[in-house]
């Protein structure tokens, strides 16, 4: 090595460490990239028309008088000075709080039994746990009326008290909210690191101490989450207080009364805004809990496998049997009640109550409307939700504008979770019924019911799709484009086939919810498009409890059939399309 060479390199000139020197690059997007970008703009337009604009309209109406003039906070002032309205706030809050306090420990014990004990029949308990999800919230309320109502067979148990009111609401809500809490807590408890338990045992901690120091901290965000979800479900549910609430007013029934009873849309909008508050708070808290939960379980954790222990398993088995019996019992009572000729005097069985045309002008048509609406919602919804989630995850984000667009669509896709059905329904009337809105032609048609249900239940489907897509290798599209294969081909040949189970889940979720929802559609149906769940409310209002129960049972039968089909078909679909998962 010559020293000349070494000497040369020492005073090496360096480029200045400032701005790069080359000419700016003009980026030419390919057709598929431009299409994805256009798709996101379409998604933004869709969510703007079906979510942002109606909600904006609702917000505006809360600050207007009946003639459309701006009145500032006058409506809110009227609201807080009307004692009956303010009382509803308190009523909503305390019934929700009591329900939460009852449901969360019960669901925790049930989920604990499923995840951390050696009780038999776990599969059956898990299936029974989900039954209330498949029924409209009205069903438990109707069953409770059969049992404890004015003609109830168990009325003597109330010692002269009345089921119509807060305690009826709480009892029905416990049933209705149980699955949501149990699902969240099952997930929270199923992800435990066995090594933590081994470490605790090695350090000679007692069982109770292990429970307090390992089990509970691991589930604390699940508990927060479950509590928040139950509270929000109760505050925003309309069916149960409508059917069993009697004179006991809550926020949800107030909205309905202001809008349908008094035709006071502005006050309805104000109550809607109030109803939005707990839901938004819950949404924020939920986000916080999810952020905290990340990283509690690392990829190297060893799964916890419970060992049999009689002292724990036996009480938990008794608890599970009791809870499962109650869940099935409530459904059973409703089903039985729907088959009774004249409750409680003539208990002979009959199918008369299923001749709906005797009770409601729409007859079986309501059920068919619901089926049609749910099929459309599920099919169109699953497609839109999945494609939009895909675009959000995979559309190019080279420019600032593209990132802003993605942020806006992403926000609108998660916002519906914080919007109660009644509020969204009200926003829809105000927006689509506005004389100046050309989109108003869908008002009163099936289309608006489908659109509303789709937006109402958008977020859960979106999160399911996003989770599934995020599990795919982020370079699939890059590999495709390096091989000159456009993104839509890779989407069709790789993304969709791999995500098919998730897409089916979204479809079933949308179908079941569109079948059972009352709160959003009750403002929106037209003379020919009354859904079955609304027919239940109407028949109950008209005093035809048996027919109402019969319709609720019909809805449950349809959702249960779809769910069973899903489970059965899921296996077949897996065998056909997921063969590659097997090693």
């Amino acid at each position, binding site marked *: 090595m010559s020293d000349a060479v070494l000497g040369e390199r020492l005073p090496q000139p360096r480029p200045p460490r400032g701005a790069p020197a080359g*000419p*700016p*690059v003009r*980026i030419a997007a390919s057709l*598929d990239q431009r299409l994805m970008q256009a798709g996101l703009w379409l998604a933004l337009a869709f969510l703007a028309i079906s979510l942002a604009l109606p909600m904006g309209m609702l917000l505006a109406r809360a600050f207007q008088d009946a003639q459309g003039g701006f009145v500032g906070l006058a409506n809110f002032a009227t609201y807080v000075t009307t004692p009956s309205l303010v009382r509803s706030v308190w009523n909503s809050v305390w019934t929700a709080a009591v329900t939460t306090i009852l449901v969360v420990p019960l669901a925790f014990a049930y989920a604990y039994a499923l995840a951390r004990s050696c009780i038999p029949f776990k599969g059956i308990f898990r299936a029974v746990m989900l039954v209330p999800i498949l029924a409209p919230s009205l069903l438990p309320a109707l069953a409770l009326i059969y049992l404890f109502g004015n003609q109830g067979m168990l009325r003597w148990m109330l010692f002269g008290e009345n089921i119509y009111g807060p305690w009826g609401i709480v009892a029905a809500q416990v049933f209705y909210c149980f699955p949501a809490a149990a699902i969240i807590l099952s997930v929270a408890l199923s992800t435990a690191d066995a090594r933590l338990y081994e470490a605790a045992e090695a350090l000679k901690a007692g069982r109770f101490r292990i429970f307090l120091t390992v089990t509970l901290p691991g589930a604390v965000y699940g508990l927060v989450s479950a509590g928040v979800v139950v509270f929000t479900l109760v505050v925003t549910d309309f069916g149960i207080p409508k059917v069993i609430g009697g004179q006991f007013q809550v926020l949800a029934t107030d909205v309905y009364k202001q809008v349908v009873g008094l035709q006071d849309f502005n006050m309805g909008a104000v109550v809607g805004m109030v109803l939005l508050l707990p839901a938004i708070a819950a949404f924020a808290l939920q986000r916080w809990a999810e952020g905290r939960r990340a990283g509690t379980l690392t990829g190297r954790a060893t799964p916890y496998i419970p060992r049999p222990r009689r002292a724990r398993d036996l009480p938990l088995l008794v608890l599970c049997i009791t809870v499962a019996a109650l869940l099935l019992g409530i459904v059973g009572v409703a089903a039985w009640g729907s088959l009774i000729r004249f409750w409680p005097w003539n208990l002979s069985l009959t199918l008369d109550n299923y001749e709906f045309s005797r009770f409601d002008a729409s007859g079986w048509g309501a059920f068919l409307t619901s089926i049609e609406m749910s099929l459309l919602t599920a099919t169109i919804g699953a497609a839109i939700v999945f494609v939009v989630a895909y675009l959000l995850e995979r559309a190019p984000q080279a420019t600032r504008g593209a990132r802003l667009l993605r942020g806006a669509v992403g926000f609108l896709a998660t916002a519906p979770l914080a919007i109660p059905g009644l509020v969204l329904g009200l926003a829809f009337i105000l927006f689509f019924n506005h004389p100046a809105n050309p989109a108003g032609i869908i008002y009163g048609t099936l289309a608006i019911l489908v659109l509303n249900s789709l937006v109402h239940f958008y977020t859960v489907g979106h999160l399911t799709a996003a989770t599934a897509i995020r599990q795919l290798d982020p370079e699939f599209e890059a590999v495709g484009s390096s091989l000159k*294969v456009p993104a839509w081909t890779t989407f069709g040949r*790789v993304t969709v086939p791999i995500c098919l189970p998730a897409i089916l889940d979204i479809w079933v979720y949308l179908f079941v919810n569109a079948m059972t929802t009352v709160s959003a559609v009750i403002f929106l149906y037209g003379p020919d498009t009354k859904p079955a769940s609304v027919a239940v409310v109407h028949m109950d209002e008209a005093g035809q409890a048996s027919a109402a129960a019969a319709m609720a049972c019909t809805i449950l039968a349809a959702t249960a059939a779809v769910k069973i089909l899903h489970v059965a078909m899921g296996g077949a679909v897996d065998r056909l399309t997921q063969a*590659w998962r097997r*090693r």
Partner: protein
Amino acid sequence: MRDETAVAERGAGAAAARPPYLEVVSLGKQFGTFVALRDVSLTIAEGEFVSFVGPSGCGKTTLLRAIAGLDPATTGVIRQAGREITGLPPAERDFGIVFQSYALFPNMTVGANVAYGLRGPSWPKQRAQARVGELLHLVGLADQVAKYPAQLSGGQQQRVALARALAPEPGLLLLDEPLSALDAIVRLHLRQEIRGLQRRLGVTTIMVTHDQEEAMGVSDRIVVMSRGLVEQVGTPEEVYRRPASAFVAGFVGRSSGFDAVVEATPGTVMAAGRLIPAEAARGLLFGTPVRCFARPEDVRLGPAAAAMPGAVEMEVTHVEFLGALCRVALEAPKLKLEADVTPEALRMLGALPGALLPAAMPADRIMVFRADE
């Protein structure tokens, strides 16, 4: 396929003679306020195997993705085979890519994966099938055509990804940390296999790796990067023997670094209170603070060192047995060195921990850099 001798002849010298296949001029890339690439320029000849190497965050993957068009650069020009491609979308460029994760489509068989890019009028079904067979034969997986990726080992998946990238006969092969996900033995074997395949096909190849040993083992030339800048471009030997900066000297290969100051006598430096002759310090002003490096194989020990000027008495602190060689760690006040000696030499020197030995570095082998660089 090009003839092999032509490819083999092509080295750093040949690169200048032909028009470059890939030309990167003043390339810059900014993410917001973060500058990932600053004024990067380099040329790659046809059929060359070039590695981008550097610590994580140095911009090597950013540069590769800019060449691929997956994340286009913000400033500068890239030309491939005479055509400007700087802002073109990936599909309008001519390259095949293998990712660290392989990104094999899990729901498709090995055969379908390799055939993924073989579509359109230029690939009728029969020709595509023949090509798939040919490539799988080439990577030694002809009997695995009907399996799904999950049923293959990591090394096999890597080969499938390579076959898929090469199937449409791209002019440029990009490898993004292709071996990082594999264990050490498979890695060593596969890197030779990739190099062999590349030689046979003559395809111009760029590999990104953080492993400088891997880069040295397979590349015609190495591009050493740090903090978004190209530190040096050269053959493995050039980069190893004549590093262009203190960073390269420290990053490529083993070396011991120490601080020194240029002395008045030309070609000497003062380190740890001792005058050490270093040819590379010639031409530097007296008093300039410098950073010096010595390779362990250049450090002499015992009687051989005692005769050399600038020998230092050092204490053996640790001996690491490496097989053919032993690496001896040495310490004196303010000076730490490593020396490679054969086990026999080690025995003769009695270089056990605690022993005191004279150590010296040949004046023409010490690498000297200004400390302010």
